[in-house]
């Protein structure tokens, strides 16, 4: 109360006063402020100068032009952007890869809109979206030329790996989380063991095992393409972490609710589907969004088993005699692409939290 009365007594400080109070309370602190601001300005100026003022834009810029200008050489992007986006996909067919990317992004955006949050609508969107992607990329039907998975690459492949990982990992994580709280010790302990085992291995080791070791163990009729094995491994890894997040969410739901539901004679699926999971998901939302963001960035690890995802494509984009010096520009461009995706994901997460907060107020 006292502070309230005080602030009411003093006239609201002007902007200049605020600045002075915050940054120049004593001469020493003032000096520190000036030096840091100067440094910041210098760095920003250098960055601006490098990225825009003395940069070379456009596909006509040659390596020699770039060296003369001394700034960023965005010509490498203008000349090689197709590799970054589409990797090794046949040049004449790259429109298919582009359309497939659009389909996947549209699918993700649609499933983020609250009015699509009905099980059958979500299922329809994802099945149709994935089917469109798959048919466009792989071809072999509808007069589209067949393109093997070894030629998929760039952003299109990164998106595929991310979406497929989520598609496998998310439902699996719910199943694992529910199994983990089963009353049968064999099931709950067994699931716990599986989750802990997967979590105690590095993702790199899992990817390598699924890409390289698994084919030696599987019988012939179970052999699938390397891409699908690796995606399954990544999905399993995602599920193990996400299951623990959902379990945390489930533990946040007061026990009395489940007991009350049982007392009312509500069946298991109803209890889980209508009472427990919705509340658990709300509790787990920040961590879940975090997991999705991590999942998106971890797609870059598939490079070790020889996939041409966006980072490997970037390496190929500057990896030619003419452009070897321009790796910074390529990496900056790829960072921008990653940023667009992960930042939208986390903004969407923030929106969801606000939206869900309404009903718990």
């Amino acid at each position, binding site marked *: 109360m006292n502070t309230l009365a005080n602030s009411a007594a003093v006239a609201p400080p002007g902007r200049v006063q605020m600045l002075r109070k915050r940054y120049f309370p004593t001469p020493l602190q003032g000096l520190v402020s000036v030096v840091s601001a100067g440094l910041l300005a210098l760095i920003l100026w250098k960055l601006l100068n490098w990225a825009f003022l003395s940069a070379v834009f456009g596909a006509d810029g040659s390596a020699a032009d770039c060296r003369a200008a001394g700034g960023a050489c965005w010509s490498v992007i203008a000349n090689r952007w197709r*590799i970054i986006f589409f990797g090794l996909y046949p040049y004449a067919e790259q429109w298919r890869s582009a359309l497939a990317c659009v389909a996947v992004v549209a699918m993700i955006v649609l499933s983020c809109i609250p009015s699509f949050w009905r099980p059958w609508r979500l299922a329809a969107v994802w099945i149709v979206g994935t089917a469109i992607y798959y048919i466009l990329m792989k071809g072999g039907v509808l007069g589209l030329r067949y393109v093997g998975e070894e030629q998929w690459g760039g952003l299109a492949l990164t998106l595929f790996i991310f979406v497929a990982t989520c598609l496998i990992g998310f439902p699996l994580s719910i199943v694992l989380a529910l199994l983990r709280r089963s009353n049968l010790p064999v099931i709950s302990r067994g699931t716990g063991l599986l989750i802990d085992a997967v979590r105690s291995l590095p993702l790199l080791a899992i990817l390598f095992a699924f890409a390289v070791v698994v084919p030696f163990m599987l019988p012939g009729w179970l052999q699938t393409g390397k891409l699908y094995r690796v995606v399954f491994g990544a999905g399993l890894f995602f599920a193990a972490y996400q299951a623990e997040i959902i379990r945390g969410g489930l533990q946040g739901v007061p026990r009395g609710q489940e007991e009350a539901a049982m007392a009312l004679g509500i069946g298991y699926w109803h209890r889980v589907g209508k009472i427990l999971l919705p509340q658990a998901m709300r509790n787990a939302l920040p961590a879940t969004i975090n997991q999705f963001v991590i999942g998106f960035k971890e797609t870059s690890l598939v490079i070790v088993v020889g996939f041409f995802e966006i980072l490997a494509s970037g*390496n190929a984009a500057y990896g030619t005699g003419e452009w070897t010096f321009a790796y910074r520009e390529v990496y900056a461009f790829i960072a921008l692409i990653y940023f667009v995706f992960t930042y939208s994901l986390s903004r969407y997460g923030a929106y969801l939290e606000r939206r869900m907060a309404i009903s718990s107020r």
Partner: protein
Amino acid sequence: MKHVRYGLGAAAIALIAAGAANAQQGGPTLKTVKDRGTLLCTGHDGSYLGFAEVDDKGAWTGLDIDLCRAVATAVLGDPAKATIIPISWAQRWPALQSGEVDLVVKASGATLSRDAELGLQFSLSYYLGTTKIMAHKSLGLTSLADADGGTICIPAGTTQQQQIASYSEKLGVKLEPVLIEKTEELEQAYFSGRCDLYTQWGPVLAIARAAKGNVDEHDILPDVLALEPEVIVMRPGDDNWVDIANWTLSALWFAEQEGITSENVDEIKADPPSPEVAKFLGVNPGMGTPLGLTDDWAYNVIKQMGNYAEIFDRNLGQGSPYKMDREMTALWKDGGVLYPYLID
């Protein structure tokens, strides 16, 4: 006794003949490749300059890639029937052993452990890569012996690290090492002057210098720290497949030796100057059948891929941005160490 000896001789001849009959159908890998209709080769997870890189249209180019296409042409008659699978360094041997690729052409050296422990098969060496040292010209070094007390950029965790250590110890030269893993950072460190010297596998070094654009400001010292013979690597237990790889390389070198190029191969085929060339180009029979291939396989390879000089030139040599010299990777008659097998 005499009878026994004759008997043995007859048996031996029968065995050899049986072996030859076997060879005509080819080994299991050849059969798999023919049935599949494509040859599965190693690419790279990104780009390895000059050996496997991606052009503006997303198609593979490079010396290793072209050699793979040459084998595909020999076996299937069409370089487009080579399917290049992106594969990382660590993954190449498991990929070969699990049948994900039919051969590994990936700047891979022939080593004891690969040969004897992993049990892999090698072709002839198609490239001789030496570990060398680059120095800033302003230092005026003539060899590493002058560089006592200098700093040297070394790729971390590679064989070059051991090679430079033992080589400088042998010379009694004390060097200050700067270990960096990523090639771009390593080159940045050298070109920015943080290191006086830079040691690396020869082609990477020459390419770095060429790509930097100021070739005259950097010397590549004459010291050779080590030689790595690069070979095509194959699964064990398929001699026919090793023969095919060797004879594909041999054909590229034979054509270079005889002056047969993709340009003039048709003229020479129409009027072969010698019986060997006639056989080589499939005018006279016998070039392909023993290997399980068609008799004109070598003609197809030269016609569509060019001879070794042409392949080298467009990927690493004067026709490429790297302008590398053949050095040791030249034919015997030009002072190099490459030579074709005889065609009899």
